């Protein structure tokens, strides 16, 4: 697989279950070990220059993986600490993110005491605490209601407009269509297509039609 995401892009990475989306993300952030190939993040090799590379990436994983012993605010403060950041400016940024994601009133409680939607927002806030240049979102709206989903979309659009590069995987094709400037569709670890979203749905077809057609072709080709 060969893939290039431009800085400032909102990149959709789509595929059926088991296509390799999460594995790709894990390889990018260092949670999976590569047997071959190279991944560079803003010019930093994520194997040899891993410290610089990891510092530029914020990951919002699909599953909640918060530290159960910390309060919501401390989840952000400690996450920043792991990235080598501390001080009053981090506390201010944590408070700003809690405010931005509507979690201020919950800042002192443990994550087990907040709702699924609030956990989803906390995942995003944590991924942003160290001011990454690349935000990786693995199914960011899985299991959230329509209202929060639309709210999250607005936040993500705003973040991208501020210059943050976003790499999104989702099963909601309308989400990718609404948010992504460029989309890659993969199957069996191989890229079937990679185009600007506008080109992908240029002839009036929906992204869902394009996706299903590619899956059918991929299956026939044995991918």
């Amino acid at each position: 697989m060969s893939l290039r995401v431009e800085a400032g892009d909102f990149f959709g990475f789509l595929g059926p279950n088991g296509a390799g989306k999460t594995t790709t993300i894990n390889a990018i952030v260092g949670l999976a070990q590569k047997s071959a190939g190279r991944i560079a993040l803003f010019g930093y090799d994520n194997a040899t220059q891993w410290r610089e590379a990891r510092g530029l990436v914020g990951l919002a994983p699909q599953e909640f993986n918060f530290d159960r012993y910390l309060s919501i605010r401390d989840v952000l403060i400690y996450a920043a600490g792991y990235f080598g950041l501390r001080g009053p400016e981090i506390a201010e940024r944590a408070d700003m993110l809690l405010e931005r994601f509507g979690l201020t009133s919950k800042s002192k409680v443990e994550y087990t005491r907040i709702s699924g939607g609030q956990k989803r927002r906390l995942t995003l806030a944590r991924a942003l605490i160290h001011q990454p240049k690349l935000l990786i979102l693995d199914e960011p709206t899985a299991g959230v209601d329509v209202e929060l989903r639309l709210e999250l979309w607005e936040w993500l659009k705003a973040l991208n407009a501020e210059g943050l590069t976003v790499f999104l995987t989702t099963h909601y094709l309308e989400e990718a269509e609404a948010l992504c400037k460029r989309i890659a569709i993969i199957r069996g670890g191989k890229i079937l297509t990679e185009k600007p979203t506008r080109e992908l749905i240029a002839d009036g077809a929906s992204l869902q039609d394009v996706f299903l057609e590619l899956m059918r072709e991929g299956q026939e080709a044995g991918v």
Partner: protein
Amino acid sequence: MNSVGFWTLVRRELVRSMKVINQVIWPPIITTLLYVFIFGLALGSRIQTVQGVTYAQFLIPGLIMQQVIDSSYGECSSSLFQGRFMNSIQELLVAPMSALEIVGGFVVGSLARAFLIAGLITVLGIVLVHAVPQNWLLFACVIAIVSILFSALGLMFGLMAEKFDHIAILTTFVITPLTFVGGVFTSATMLPPQLRTFELFNPIFYTIDAFRRSYTGESYLPPIYSIAAVVLLAAVALAVVLRMVGTGYKLRV
């Protein structure tokens, strides 16, 4: 070097210990109190002196070592395994933290907890049976080295375990039996000669023997041998666990 990341992890480990204080701090203190009352004061009154001190005073360093070993192993094994189980370990793995910083953070956090527990038991020993360490440098050194050794073993088992049950295997079948026969309750000189030879194959014997010297000024072996043996074991255990974390063993897919 990500020193902020390292100290953040140390602080996190201490927060964790304080959150489960009824599970990890008070039980060793209560257990020690019971040992002192039952073995030290009740049964110990029938024993004259051991290594020049009362049996209750003789017991205190052994009990401290027992709790340092249990606490260090338990802290690192359960914290790391829980992190794997809940996936919260991923927070460390995606951060710019090296294997050394991660292992160091867990070990220093565990070391702090071991010193806290050892300190509390030391105070109990002073108050209850007037057992006062005579050599504070040896006292601190042995606690530190033993805590590092068992923290590293805890991390190893925290990595290898597939379920919570597995991390208890080393405690139940190895650490507890070896601790009990390693000199917590007895001096090597009280044992028959053939058992004394057997003790030399028990690594926990070295830890207790060296540590007791910081109280009584006497030991079965010169403390330099015991300390060297424990330092060697700790170095090997640390090297192995650094390698495991560095290669992502059961951490990175």
